[in-house]
């Protein structure tokens, strides 16, 4: 019997373990569906595949190859371990070998992924016999290699940001590439949702426009994780009909999914054993049984903690830690360090890894047998992806979800049928969002002047006219020319809060070694002065965080605690645009300042996790100036009157539930991601002197979502009411009003009170024409 089989039998017979298991789901093994290698596949590729032991394809890989050969744009749904790279590499290599001039562009949402892909392509798919030059082109590519990449790279691997600010604005340097561009591969297409996805759509409009200028019309191959609407999303992003291939032909072994709620340590107050300690104990148990294990944790600090606890538990000089090596892995390590860990995982030097969601995406780390999820990762599809990291082979595999004490985790672990019944999240884009479209029109005009009557792809003449009035374009000779000295892509970012990274430098005993980096947003919360910084199991104390110079100096330390900062957020109204009324609802559009302040931190003792003291943090507040709409609950309006009917004690909890409902429904109508907007309910807001709800954009300067809320308000509230009334849960779940919150000072979830409030209010609203 395999190690994992033994482990499963073992815990099944263990009563104290089984007491905490709320669900044990066994997914039966699935047979693979195979097709022979296509006859048209060039012989060098066939040979290279055979050298890797590949003599047939999974049915979906073959389907991709055929659809691509028919000239179709396609989107393939690729769960973990389904052989994604062959889905696009085979059709691309065939074309590149048949047509010696042709080129392909591979786009990955992040730099880390694109670098991983280059090594995957170089190491695995290609051998010396296949004369196709592959080049990574991103911010890290040295100047000396850029020219070679442009001139002779047959496959260019890059990311949206580089395409936006580096490649497209300089397209004449890329003439050889664009004029023979045959394929564009979009990997992780599910990550292009909401505002980022809308940017991506416009970026591809620009790309297609430039390709057309040089006479090419590339075909698209998209890969998506399992989401609600992969084909629809891909179609919306590339704006072409898409063939969806979503029948997975890869085999998979038997899979055990275990929901585990840590035992109560204080049944009176309902306090459970911590997720960190529970997860590390489970991981140690798995590792000691000889099972290769990955632990996913929800934050960088927890990743370091879990890894160091595991190593401490295994620590034993007499048997060389039982020959078990466990590493931590997260964003912020130097690329070299990450590559090393990935490689050691693949070749089996490392038996265990503790990671943030950084390893959830398509980085190749080979086969692992068990996954421990220390807390739910925030979305159902992420949960499946993390669980899918275990069981790449056809063997039995195991995933254990360990719930934290958060309301969502507790709901999921106590109601596992919600998890198994839930539809995966869908993705939307709104490429004609005025703000985003306008930004890309500027870039597009810089790239190639707009001819009169030319679309993008819709009619944009009035928008071009607007830019002309503002002096950035000049209309002459039936063309709009870029007429400004600036380089527009430079001041337009595809992501919110993309800021420079802070470099972390170890200065122990006069050293000056860069050991990592961190975005400045996280730096404020994690590496403030006096913070304890954990890096691959080593402990450091922060000497100085200099946000202006983007430098953080640290020194080795060995205290018995780690630090956790306390975040305070606040909304301040800067300027009102005046009140308006729609269907009796008073709305105020305004400019607001979102403030995040870290002013204090807790010192938390290792192992016991008790709070052993506080410290002050002296950092300027982080501010974001953005757009918001305030939905007033002023007495005398339908909403206000309905709100007054709620017992005072319940007003705050109901408002919190209404905010959750809006957050759950609005993205569908505003065509954004949940994280693109913020919703905050206020009882007696000091600025408006009444209760109400702020809905705001989480992008600096705003991106039109809050402004557009008014237009869609009726539909959104209708959906809120429908959701709270019809949700099949008992008393509130993450999909509707949110689960029971221990923080509330009462027993039940005010789901029905929330429903009644909405119904009374909206009954009045429906009467308006």
């Amino acid at each position, binding site marked *: 019997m395999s190690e994992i089989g033994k482990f499963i039998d073992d815990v099944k017979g263990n009563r104290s373990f089984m007491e905490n298991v709320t669900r044990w789901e066994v997914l039966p093994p699935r047979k693979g569906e195979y097709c022979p290698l296509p006859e048209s596949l060039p012989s060098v590729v066939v040979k290279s595949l055979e050298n890797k032991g590949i003599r047939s394809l999974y049915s979906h890989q073959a389907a991709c190859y055929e659809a691509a050969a028919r000239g179709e744009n396609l989107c393939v749904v690729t769960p973990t371990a389904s052989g994604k790279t062959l889905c696009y590499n085979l059709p691309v290599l065939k074309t590149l070998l048949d047509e010696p001039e042709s080129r392909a562009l591979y786009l990955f949402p992040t730099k880390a992924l694109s670098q991983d892909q280059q090594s995957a392509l170089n190491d695995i798919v290609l051998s010396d016999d296949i004369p196709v030059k592959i080049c990574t082109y991103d911010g890290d590519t040295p100047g000396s290699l850029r020219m070679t990449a442009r001139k002779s790279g047959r496959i260019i691997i890059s990311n949206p940001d580089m395409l936006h600010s580096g490649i497209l*604005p*300089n*397209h*004449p*340097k890329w*003439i050889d590439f664009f004029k023979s561009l045959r394929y564009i591969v979009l990997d992780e297409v599910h990550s292009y949702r909401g505002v980022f996805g809308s940017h991506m759509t416009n970026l591809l409009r620009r790309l297609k426009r430039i390709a057309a200028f040089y006479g090419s019309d590339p075909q698209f191959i998209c890969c998506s994780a399992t989401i609600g609407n992969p084909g629809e999303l891909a179609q919306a992003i590339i704006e072409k009909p898409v063939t969806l291939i979503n029948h997975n032909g890869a085999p998979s072994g038997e899979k055990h999914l275990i929901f585990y709620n840590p035992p109560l340590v204080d049944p009176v107050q309902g306090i459970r054993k911590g997720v960190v300690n529970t997860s590390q104990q489970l991981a140690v148990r798995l590792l000691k049984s000889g099972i290769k294990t990955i632990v996913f944790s929800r934050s960088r600090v927890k990743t370091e903690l879990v890894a160091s606890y595991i190593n401490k538990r295994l620590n034993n000089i007499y048997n060389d830690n039982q020959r078990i090596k466990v590493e931590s892995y997260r964003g912020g390590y130097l690329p070299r360090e990450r590559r090393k860990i990935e490689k050691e995982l693949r070749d089996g030097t490392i038996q265990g890894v503790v990671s943030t969601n950084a390893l959830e995406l398509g980085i190749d780390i080979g086969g692992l047998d068990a996954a421990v999820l220390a807390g739910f990762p925030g979305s159902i599809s992420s949960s499946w992806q993390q669980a899918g990291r275990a069981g790449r082979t056809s063997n039995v595999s195991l995933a254990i979800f360990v719930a934290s004490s958060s309301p969502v985790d507790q709901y999921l672990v106590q109601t596992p049928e919600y998890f198994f019944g839930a539809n995966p999240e869908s993705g939307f884009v709104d490429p*004609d969002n*005025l*703000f985003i479209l*306008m930004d890309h029109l500027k870039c597009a*005009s*810089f*790239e*190639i*002047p707009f001819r009169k009557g030319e679309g993008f792809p*819709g*009619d*944009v003449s*009035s*928008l071009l006219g*607007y830019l*002309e*009035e*503002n*002096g*950035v*374009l*000049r*209309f*002459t*000779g039936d*063309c709009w*020319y*870029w*007429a*400004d*000295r*600036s*380089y*527009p892509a*430079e*001041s337009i970012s595809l992501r919110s809060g993309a800021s420079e990274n802070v470099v972390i430098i170890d200065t122990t005993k006069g050293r000056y070694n860069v050991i990592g980096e961190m975005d400045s947003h996280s730096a404020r919360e994690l590496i403030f002065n006096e913070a304890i910084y954990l890096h691959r199991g080593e402990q450091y104390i922060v000497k100085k965080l200099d946000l202006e110079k983007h430098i953080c100096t640290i020194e080795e330390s060995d205290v018995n605690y780690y630090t956790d900062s306390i975040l305070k957020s606040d909304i301040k109204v800067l300027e009102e645009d005046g009140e308006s009324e729609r269907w009796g609802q008073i709305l105020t559009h305004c*400019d607001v300042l979102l403030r995040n302040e870290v002013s204090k931190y807790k010192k938390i003792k290792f192992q016991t996790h008790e709070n052993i003291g506080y410290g002050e943090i002296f950092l300027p507040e982080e501010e974001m100036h953005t*757009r918001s709409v305030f939905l007033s609950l002023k007495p005398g309006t339908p909403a206000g009157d309905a709100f007054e009917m709620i017992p005072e004690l319940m007003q705050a909890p109901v408002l919190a539930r209404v905010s959750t409902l809006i957050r759950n429904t609005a993205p569908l109508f505003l065509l954004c991601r949940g994280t693109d907007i913020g919703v905050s309910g206020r009882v007696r807001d000091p600025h408006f002197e009444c209760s109400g709800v702020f809905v705001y954009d989480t992008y600096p*300067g*705003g991106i*039109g979502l809050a*402004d557009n809320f008014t237009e869609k308000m009726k539909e959104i509230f209708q959906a809120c009411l429908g959701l709270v009334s019809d949700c099949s849960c008992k008393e509130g779940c993450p999909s509707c009003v949110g689960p029971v919150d221990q923080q509330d000072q009462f027993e039940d979830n005010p789901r029905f009170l929330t429903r009644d409030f909405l119904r009374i209010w909206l009954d009045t609203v429906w009467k308006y024409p």
Partner: protein
Amino acid sequence: MEVSMKADLSARLSRLKKVKSIQNIPKQAASASISDEEIKIPPGWTALDRDVWKREIRMPDPLANLNLSTYLAPSDIPREDWLFFDTETTGLSGGAGTTAFLIGLGRSEGTDFIMTQYFLRDYPGEPLMLNFLKEDFKRAGLLISYNGKSYDSPLLRTRFLMNRIPFEFAEQLDLLYPVRKLYRRTLPNCRLGTAETFLLQNPRQGDIPGSEIPDMWFNFLKDNNADSMSQVFEHNRLDIVRMADLLTYLENVLSHPEEQKPFRDLFALGRFLTERDNPLGIELLEQAIRKGDPRAEAYLSVYWKRRGEWDRAVGLWESILRKRSGLYAGTELAKYLEHHRKNLSSALIIVDRLLRELPIRDPRRKAELQHRRNRLLAKIRKQSENS
């Protein structure tokens, strides 16, 4: 776009205006609204068509006093085939949306120098202007510029490509490179204006800063007042003439390197000539050493070492070490003593001195030195064991 979106477009655009930082851009619309008759062509210029103007200026040839050194302009390209060029552009960051709106050219003809300028009066004239330029470029055997290799040439390439005009560039001579090589240490910077002020001793008066030039053209597009452009025309004309002056100056310096000239960097000039196998170079380097230039000593010691002239190299290293503890000289001398002279104890003395006296920050260097010391010690031990 949908109809509903268009309906409230203006309202939403006004919000956009408020929120987004488009406020910084010029307020006036950039539409071409003024009729052709209203545009006064300045004297000296002729219109090739509605949107391209040209002028030619004939002047005495600044290259008349040039003594060819052969180190810059190749001797096999006749002087009449040299073409100086310089562009004024709509932005400084490059990219497909940056256009050259003024192109200046200069060439010798007999005893004259003929300056040609093409001016883009409006965007649609670009293909015509480029076609003229293409013909001028075709006739040239050598293109001479200042920073043209990394700025003007790639930009023009982009313009030709964007307008689908086939083009070719002759061999290029970028004067920025020799200025950098020869004067980096002695001039505050290597901009053309700086070279004019200090080398040519001919500073510009009342010239406009280059950073203002793009906006002057954008303003011209709006008000069509060519008077304001005259400063830009003059700036560009001077760029061309001064490039010719500078080439004359540099060629003369290189033809007679022994002559004392202001801002001469003996070491840089000596190295330049030595790299080109001119024996005068060594002489200048030795002069520099006598004047106490440590760079010259180090450079020449490498030079001799590469040629196997050990006595000369060792002499220089010893001379350096008499003055100060030099890491390079010390290491080289220790290596020489260890490997060529088998004099281990002398080598050890030098290594010890370096370790003692030098504050070496680079841990790798320090480790290397330590390693050398250990190896010497081991060898000495072995030697004494054997004897």
